[in-house]
């Protein structure tokens, strides 16, 4: 059978083409239009190859593997494909190619002379390295691809190297990313020290001790969770996404974060016999991420920071699915595993689709108005209707509302959680369900705020007033993504076979018990979506004539201001005040910095009220710790003030310490370092 080899070679070729897509542009002059064109066409070509490969893999052609000698003695660089890899590789190709097309119009060489070529080179490198992350099956190769991804991401975040904000965001990203890589080094080293080589294959139950397995799992969860942006580890994410160009943010949020998810999923499948505590841990982290992140999102003014926080929320939902699957695996319940992991995986796809759609939309807004501040936009729906419509669809999808794709994956997770509730025995595993519900409601609030603040009402600034619709080259990718969201939402049955294969790979064997279609009402979802659309269409057609007539009769009718005639755009309910009712409830977590106005006397002078929601973990926990560490480190310097006699005394002291006290020291170090 040739098919498996074919799929793998297609995927490898795709990775190489993507990684090299930016290289020709480096050789051309920055002004030439051919650099971007070549890069984009190469990206599209590579993506088509990759899509073909994914189609084969997800279509069920058996897995294949190739290997080269690696730098580690006895180790080999192994590349292999299975349904799980294919599943996570697919978004790379979809979002990547669309993003490069979008970038043609969004980042033209004429406007960005200095960094365009570097941007395109790193963009291609990012896509290629993520492809290889999904294919690598040994520690060294995986980490190489991983770091290539991380570093190209760093250079993409600092594309605008002149802005201090971008540099700061980039450094934060780099530091977090390196911490994650070190955790992964520990993870793979631990696996290798107990499992033999660095090969990344499922370990036998007896192969690794319980304690070692737990440490390995935690290392992997932290290392990958930093990249995925799970809640306490997320601090790098908002700044980075805000600083990067929008199509890059789309890829980072839609695809790069998913590499972290892939890592956690893969690690969970490699480690044998997970205790139930792992699942509980993942469920807890997922629930906290989802709920708190969406609350943070509500507090944001910057459109892209808001979308970044909503990415953290979606990662939380994905983790809920994974945690459920882990619980199911340790409880021996195939239906939980199926529903949980299917929800997790499908939400990975869905989030890739609608989040990149939303980031493209945010890019268009920034492109048209020159600002990302929701307090300065408004009324864009009439100036850029196509963008508004697509953005609205994305918002509905990301809120998990029917009939779009977000609903399907969340439904899977809900079903799994409720199944734990109806199973005999303690039902603690079902507790995330209400949390997920609250998250969904908050997501509605959040995206009503976003859509309303950006596109509805009247323009709050002159720039928003003169906004222009984006060129077709920016609209077309958004349209494609929107269609994909609709299709996945209306016909989830299409994804079912791929999901089942991926789940089988994760579990190590095809799951017993009913199939996904047997567990979740896929058909009913389709019919429901059809009914919803049909009814809406009919009713709309029914009222449309009356509305037409009304418009014709009074084209310039103002909004009814409840008797107050002198309406001004500044009178509108702003995005922040829209969210205030909720953010006030979450003040304990958001810690908004507020400067209340001073109002005194009968006729107080004009006053201003300021409120800003930063990242609590970064501002309240990490930065103070970092400052204290620096202060403590600086205290060491006083011991090195250039006095030679003192230096010689250090040597004497060292001898004295090591020689005279060598027995107690020996004992001390012995207790510290082991035999």
């Amino acid at each position, binding site marked *: 059978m040739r098919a498996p080899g074919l799929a793998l070679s297609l995927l490898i070729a795709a990775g190489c083409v993507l990684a090299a897509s930016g290289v020709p542009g480096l050789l051309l002059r920055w002004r030439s239009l051919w650099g971007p064109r070549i890069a984009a066409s190469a990206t599209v070509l590579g993506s088509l190859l990759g899509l073909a490969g994914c189609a084969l893999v997800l279509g069920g052609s058996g897995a294949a593997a190739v290997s080269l000698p690696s*730098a580690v003695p006895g180790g080999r660089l192994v590349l292999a494909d299975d349904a799980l890899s294919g599943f996570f590789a697919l978004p790379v190709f979809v979002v990547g190619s669309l993003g490069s097309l979008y970038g043609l119009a969004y980042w033209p060489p004429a406007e960005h002379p200095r960094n365009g070529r570097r941007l395109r080179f790193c963009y291609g490198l990012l896509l290629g390295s993520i492809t290889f992350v999904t294919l690598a099956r040994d*520690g060294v190769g995986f980490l190489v691809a991983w770091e290539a991804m991380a570093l190209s991401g760093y250079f993409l975040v600092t594309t605008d190297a002149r802005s201090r904000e971008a540099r700061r965001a980039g450094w934060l990203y*780099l530091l977090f990313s390196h911490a994650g890589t070190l955790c992964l080094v520990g993870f793979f*080293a631990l696996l290798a020290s107990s499992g033999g080589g660095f090969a990344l294959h499922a370990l036998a139950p007896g192969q690794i001790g319980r304690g070692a397995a737990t440490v390995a799992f935690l290392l992997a969860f932290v290392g990958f969770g930093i990249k995925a942006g799970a809640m306490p580890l997320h601090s790098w994410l908002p700044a980075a996404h805000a600083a990067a160009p929008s199509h890059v943010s789309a890829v980072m949020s839609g695809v790069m974060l998913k590499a972290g998810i892939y890592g956690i999923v893969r690690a969970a499948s490699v480690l044998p016999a997970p205790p139930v505590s792992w699942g509980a841990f993942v469920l807890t982290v997922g629930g906290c991420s989802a709920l708190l992140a969406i609350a943070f999102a509500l507090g944001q003014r910057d459109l892209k920071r808001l979308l970044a926080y909503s990415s953290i929320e979606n990662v939380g939902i994905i983790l809920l699915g994974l945690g459920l699957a882990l619980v199911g695996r340790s409880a021996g319940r195939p239906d939980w595993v199926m529903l949980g992991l299917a929800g997790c995986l499908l939400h990975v796809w869905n989030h890739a689709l609608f989040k990149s759609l939303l980031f493209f939309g945010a890019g268009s807004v920034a492109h048209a108005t020159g600002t990302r501040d929701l307090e300065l936009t408004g009324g864009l729906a009439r100036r850029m209707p196509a963008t508004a419509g697509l953005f609205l669809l994305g918002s509905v999808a990301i809120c998990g509302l029917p009939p779009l794709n977000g609903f399907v994956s969340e439904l899977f997770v809900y079903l799994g959680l409720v199944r734990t509730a109806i199973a005999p025995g303690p039902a603690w595993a079902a507790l995330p369900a209400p949390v997920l519900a609250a998250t969904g409601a908050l997501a509605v609030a959040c995206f009503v705020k976003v859509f309303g603040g950006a596109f509805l009402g009247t323009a709050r600034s002159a720039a928003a007033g003169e906004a222009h619709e984006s060129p077709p080259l920016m609209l077309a990718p958004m349209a494609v993504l929107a269609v994909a969201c609709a299709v996945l939402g209306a016909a989830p049955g299409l994804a079912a076979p791929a999901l089942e294969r991926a789940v089988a790979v994760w579990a190590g064997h095809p799951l017993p018990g009913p199939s996904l279609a047997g567990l979740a009402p896929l058909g009913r979802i389709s019919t429901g979506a059809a009914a919803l659309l049909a009814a809406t269409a009919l009713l709309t057609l029914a009222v449309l004539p009356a509305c037409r007539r009304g418009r014709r009769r009074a084209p310039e009718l103002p909004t009814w201001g409840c008797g107050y005639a002198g309406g001004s755009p500044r009178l509108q309910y702003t995005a922040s005040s829209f969210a205030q009712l909720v953010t006030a409830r979450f003040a304990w977590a958001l810690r908004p910095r507020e400067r209340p106005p001073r109002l005194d006397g009968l006729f107080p002078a004009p006053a201003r009220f300021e409120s800003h929601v930063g990242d609590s973990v970064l501002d309240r926990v990490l930065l103070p710790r970092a400052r204290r560490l620096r202060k403590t480190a600086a205290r060491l310097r006083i011991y090195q003030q250039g006095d030679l006699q003192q230096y010689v005394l250090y040597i004497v002291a060292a001898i004295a310490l090591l020689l005279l006290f060598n027995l107690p020291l020996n004992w001390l170090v012995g207790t510290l370092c082991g*035999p």
Partner: protein
Amino acid sequence: MPPIPVALPLLMAVVVFYTPSKRWRPRLLAATAAVHFGVTVAILGGVTVEPAGAWLRLDAPGRLLLGVISLLILACAVYSVGYLRYRVERANRRFCACMLAALATMSLVAYAQHLGLLWVGIEATTLATAPLIYFNRTARSIEATWKYLIISSVGIALALLGSFFVAYAALLGGGEASLLFSGLLSGAGALSKPWLRAGFTLLLVGYGTKLGLVPMHTWKPDAYGEAPGVVGSLLAGGLTSCAYLALLRLTQITAAAGEGVYANRLLIAIGLVSMGVSGALMLGQRDLKRMLAYSSVEHMGILAVAGGLGAGATFAALLHLVNNAFGKGVMFLSVGNIHRAFGGKTTDEVHGALRRLPLSGTLFLLGLFAVTGSPPFGLFVSELLIVKATFASGRWAVAGLFLAFLLLAFAGMGATSLSALQGRPPLSARRSTYRDSFTTFAPALCLLGLVLLFGLHLPETVRALITDAATALEVGR
């Protein structure tokens, strides 16, 4: 009759010293280094047979060390040609002669099979490199040289005392008190334990001074900071490797005498302390060269830990030795160029190096990722193997601290380097005359290429070289 790799550079050092032409001396230096490298390749390739003297013999570890030094110094020599062209105002007679002398003495260390001879060689490297640090003839460089000489001499003196202790331990053991490694190894069982322990401790402190282990590291930032970049790479890549090999040999003997646990604990403890302190001192460090010096201290700590992990980690340790030598070479050579271009080496003067020097700046950036152990560079592989060995030997706390200190070092180096690389270069820097030329750029590029290659795929010859050395050093452990 001393072997060619020792004799040739020594001879040429004298020749160069008496060469009148200022333009020819660097060329002679480069030529000699090239010939030395050729000879080394021939020896490693087994083309020429070595005289198997008792005291001067090239065993497997020596072969590895000789190869590393020869290649590194070749790069430094080629670089010096371009570098000295920019420093015409300086007399380069001593510089060139001492470079060759250093090459000779380091080769001697690679050949030495006798504890005393080893000591002589290492002390000689100290003396040969001191004038190099003094190249700039400024007050600061004098001070650096002075501290380097005094501290290293004191440390080295202690190493001599330690060697005597070991010899006395052998004497006490009843065997004839030979200081040949082979003899010590074979008669290790009979060595008197207390004297051996004391001797090992003194040798650890003594050679640790050359390595720059905390708290004997104090000379390092001063010397590396004031010496020209090329000298820094010579010290951080070559000298430390010699001292580390000496330390490994003694650890092997101590372990063979049944004191392995003691030696390992000492090495791990002092290694971790070095990593932690150097990482802390790198935080907020504003001087690029001093930062590199502390990074060197950190890597010496890594090597010490690896040496203390016992058998199994020796391969990783030697691989790390090789990678560190070349990686530090890249860093110091490129920072030398940056120093030339900006007329300064602190983050107050250096901004936007990537824009002022696209080539050297990029090299420095990649070198930064290389020495901080990021994939796909060689140091990543060796550190991965070291962590694996740490876990395998059940030292979980050590592994945790190890990784934490690596992160600390990255935080320090990254903040400093990036603030120097990014941003807008100051006006003075844009006016300065320095431009990247082939001779000042190519050597660093080649070294970086090697580090990258060793990370992706270790060539069979190199692997054999390291494996043989490792097996030879693990006899009796």
